[in-house]
């Protein structure tokens, strides 16, 4: 099977190279058949890589340890659900996933656009296949997923315990989908620049893919944050880690792009800006992939030192130079058709919002790469922490949220006093009332930033609500429908617009959760014995009893905690720390069951008002003498067996292992029978759940915007678009 996998990768590489050549030859020699052949090469690539990826997945599911990648990232005791996900916990497997997703999304994009953008598509095909060739080269020459072992081990190392979380099943595929989907508008932008087809057609054709990329990347980021919150045992969801930041960078510029293309579609403006944004987004997507793999920056998530840095640097260098060169080369074709009529117009708000988003991306980029920058400038590697990021990100995010509420209220071209009165009064009142109400809450005035954020969020929600209300009323008046039917109708016919509004509302809710939970959070680290209590933010937390469980997968030591307030029971929380067996036999026959990787199971009581979060960190030091005694006893017994008669050896070893299992279980039970103090971290975070709620609303809004419009609306849009293309063609032929 591994041989087949290796052969498939070589075939895929050949297909990709052929596709690049065929597409370019067809594009510049005018051979339609070659263009079609290049496009079909992408479909073939998707087919070949689907089989290759399936082979790797089957190897994981069958625990085929003849595959090096399976032996080092899975085990027979790894649950089936996680065996499937273990494929992308490795460098090799994740590269294969990346190129497979690229081939699938590229096939879909080229299938959808096969009768459109006929001049641009062949070049775009060549660009997409160049990316595929690059990643296939990595999987063939640098990080081979189908390497086999000469001596096949009976058991694998197992999946890292930290990755055994449902969010990890979807987090990497969603991130990679986002990265690879952003390659599509990038490739079409390159095609449009090279072929000088710089009207809005390439944007319209790839807009949905840009939106899908934005959505997938956003979902991936949120899933990563959720994993961090519930798995990493520190109680946070974002730490400005370089690898986290790497995914945020293309998301920020991608957000700017999907807003600014509306201006190019409607008014033919910002062509240089849009081309630059999408090229930057595509490059940042590759940069994100590079950061995780190069090991140039220290991160909890990075793949460590590897040999992939140089090839990635060459690719990124080529992308940056090529992008800048193309935009400069075609600057005469990228002139705007209209000027900004007024700084008080929707175009200006979009532009300002774009500047803020790019500013945010620059801050994140600078802070992320600062260790390298400082080393280059001063000779000393230095890093900046969360306070530095917060200093810039918080005010910029504040303005961004405010603009997401202002944008829908401002008309295109010019704002008038009448539209100010019509649009702004209600949202401004909502913001004012909210801030005043919040300031009446004891202690709230101590956090003016959180109060201001809450006011802005109220403004955004009122603005979105008002737009929905007005749309519904207008439809009711014209179609004489009931309110729910009219609302559904108006949203259905303008999915992109209202989906966008829902995204704004969701994002505002998400940031409200971030602002309030971080400003009013109470955290406490404390050591407790069973029966002892601690008070955190008015909650009495009692360590009721210790728990211990020795299972085939791991040994779990934990606690049951009772949460009460003013004598009334609020919740019962259970938290454990799981210790996975180590493969390092030097830790001793008993000791290695306590000396492997460990992970936390968080005790969480989530609510709309607040989350109560706790994690246990049991100190294993009191068990050390018993473990060492067990190691000595079993080592002596093992030596005795090995020096005894060979005929009875197998049976004796089996008996010894049974005794060892009983001993390990008994050692773990000591945590319950003779409990000692355990360290706990307690966190009470108000509105933390709103972060995830806001993310879900944002996701639903994104889906709404992405969903294809009904046939009638599509015809109307197509007619308008056709008229616009005709106008542009008339202008270019003059």
């Amino acid at each position, binding site marked *: 099977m591994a041989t087949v996998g290796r052969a498939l990768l070589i075939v895929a590489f050949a297909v990709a190279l052929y596709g690049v050549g065929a597409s370019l030859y067809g594009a510049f020699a005018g051979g339609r058949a070659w263009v079609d052949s290049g496009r079909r090469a992408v479909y073939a690539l998707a087919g070949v890589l689907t089989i290759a990826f399936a082979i790797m997945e089957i190897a994981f599911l069958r625990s085929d340890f003849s595959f090096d990648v399976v*032996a*080092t*990232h899975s085990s027979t005791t790894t649950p089936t659900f996680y065996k499937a996900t273990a494929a992308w*916990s490795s*460098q090799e497997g994740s590269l294969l996933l990346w190129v497979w997703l690229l081939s699938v999304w590229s096939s879909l994009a080229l299938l959808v656009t096969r009768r459109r953008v006929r001049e641009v598509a062949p070049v775009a095909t060549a660009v997409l296949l160049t990316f595929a060739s690059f990643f296939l080269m990595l999987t063939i020459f640098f990080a081979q997923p189908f390497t086999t072992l000469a001596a096949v*081990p*009976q*058991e694998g*190392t197992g*999946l*890292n*315990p*930290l*990755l055994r979380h449902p969010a990890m099943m979807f987090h990497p595929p969603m991130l990679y989908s986002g990265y690879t989907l952003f390659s599509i508008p990038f490739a079409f932008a390159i095609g449009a620049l090279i072929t000088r087809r710089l009207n809005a057609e390439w944007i319209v054709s790839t807009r949905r893919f840009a939106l899908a990329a934005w959505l997938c990347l956003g979902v991936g980021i949120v899933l990563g944050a959720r994993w961090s919150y519930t798995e990493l*045992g*520190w109680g946070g969801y974002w*730490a400005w880690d370089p690898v986290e930041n790497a995914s945020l960078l293309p998301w920020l510029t991608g957000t700017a792009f999907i807003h600014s293309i509306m201006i190019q579609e409607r008014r033919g403006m910002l062509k240089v800006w849009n081309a630059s944004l999408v090229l930057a987004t595509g490059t940042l997507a590759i940069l994100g992939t590079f950061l995780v793999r190069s090991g140039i920056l*220290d*991160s*909890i*998530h*990075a793949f*460590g*030192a*590897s040999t992939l840095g140089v090839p990635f640097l060459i690719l990124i260098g080529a992308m940056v130079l090529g992008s800048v060169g193309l935009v400069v080369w075609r600057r005469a074709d990228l002139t705007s058709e209209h*000027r900004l009529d007024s700084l008080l117009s929707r175009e200006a708000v979009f532009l300002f919002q774009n500047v803020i988003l790019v500013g945010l991306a*620059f*801050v994140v980029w600078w*802070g992320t790469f*600062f260790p390298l920058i*400082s080393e280059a400038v001063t000779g000393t*590697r*230095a*890093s*900046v*922490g969360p*306070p*530095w990021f917060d*200093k*810039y990100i918080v005010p910029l995010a504040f303005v961004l949220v405010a603009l997401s509420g202002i944008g829908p209220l401002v008309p295109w071209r010019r704002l008038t006093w009448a539209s100010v009165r019509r649009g702004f009064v209600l949202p401004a009142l909502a913001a004012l009332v909210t801030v005043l109400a919040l300031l009446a809450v004891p202690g709230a005035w101590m956090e003016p930033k959180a109060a201001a954020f809450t006011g802005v969020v109220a403004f955004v929600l009122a603005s979105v609500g008002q737009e929905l209300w007005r749309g519904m009323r207008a439809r009711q008046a014209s179609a004489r429908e009931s309110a729910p039917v009219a609302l559904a109708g108006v949203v259905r016919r303008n999915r992109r617009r209202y989906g966008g509004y829902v995204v704004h509302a969701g994002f505002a809710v998400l940031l409200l959760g971030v602002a309030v939970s971080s400003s009013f959070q109470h955290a406490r*680290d*404390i050591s407790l014995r069973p029966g002892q209590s601690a008070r955190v933010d008015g909650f009495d937390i009692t360590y009721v009893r210790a728990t211990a469980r020795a*299972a*085939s*997968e791991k*040994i779990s030591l934990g606690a049951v905690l009772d949460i009460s307030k003013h004598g009334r029971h609020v919740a019962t929380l259970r938290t454990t720390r799981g210790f996975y*067996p180590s*493969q390092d*036999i030097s830790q001793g026959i008993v000791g*290695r*069951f306590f000396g492997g*990787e*460990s*992970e*936390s199971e968080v005790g969480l009581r989530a609510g709309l008002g607040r989350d109560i979060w706790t994690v246990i960190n049991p100190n294993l030091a009191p068990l050390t003498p018993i473990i060492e005694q067990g190691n000595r006893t079993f080592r002596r017994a093992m030596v005795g067996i090995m020096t005894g008669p060979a005929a009875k050896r197998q049976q004796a*070893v089996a008996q010894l*292992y049974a005794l*060892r299992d009983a001993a390990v279980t008994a050692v773990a039970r000591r945590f319950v029978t003779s409990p000692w103090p355990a*360290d706990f*971290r307690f966190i009470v975070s108000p509105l933390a759940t709103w972060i995830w709620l806001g993310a879900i609303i944002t996701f639903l809004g994104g889906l709404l915007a992405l969903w294809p419009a009904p046939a009638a609306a599509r015809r109307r849009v197509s007619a308008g678009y056709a008229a616009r293309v005709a106008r542009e063609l008339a202008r270019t032929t003059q």
Partner: protein
Amino acid sequence: MDPSRKRRIRLVVALTAALLAASALIYTSFSAGSDEKTAGQLLDGAVAGKTYTLAGTVKDGSVRRADGVLWFSVRDPHRPVAVRVRYTGIVPDPFRAGRGVMVKVQRGAGDLFVGEKDTMVTKCPSKFQVAPPRPGSGGPASLT
């Protein structure tokens, strides 16, 4: 005013504002950044009261926990020296002897450095390229 002149003025104002903002960002990053040092570099020249980011590997057999305080030593990757660290706060799940860590520290007495609360970052072992030891002869790796 002439529209093209107005546009030029707007552009100059916007570019000046962007330049000023970028300058502030760059200045504060250099003044707020904490130097990343190895154990040997800290022993040679760490100044009391200044914060450094200590990067290295947790020394085998050095990890000890008492009264909510974590004690461990960090090895220099290039020289046979190590510094002791006294740390309180969040200990990442992957923390253990032999693992790469980064922690913000200030100089204490002798070779002791005091870790800043909740600043420890541990390398995620799943993503390392170094192959872990193969299953050995110590029996099944898990409870049967």
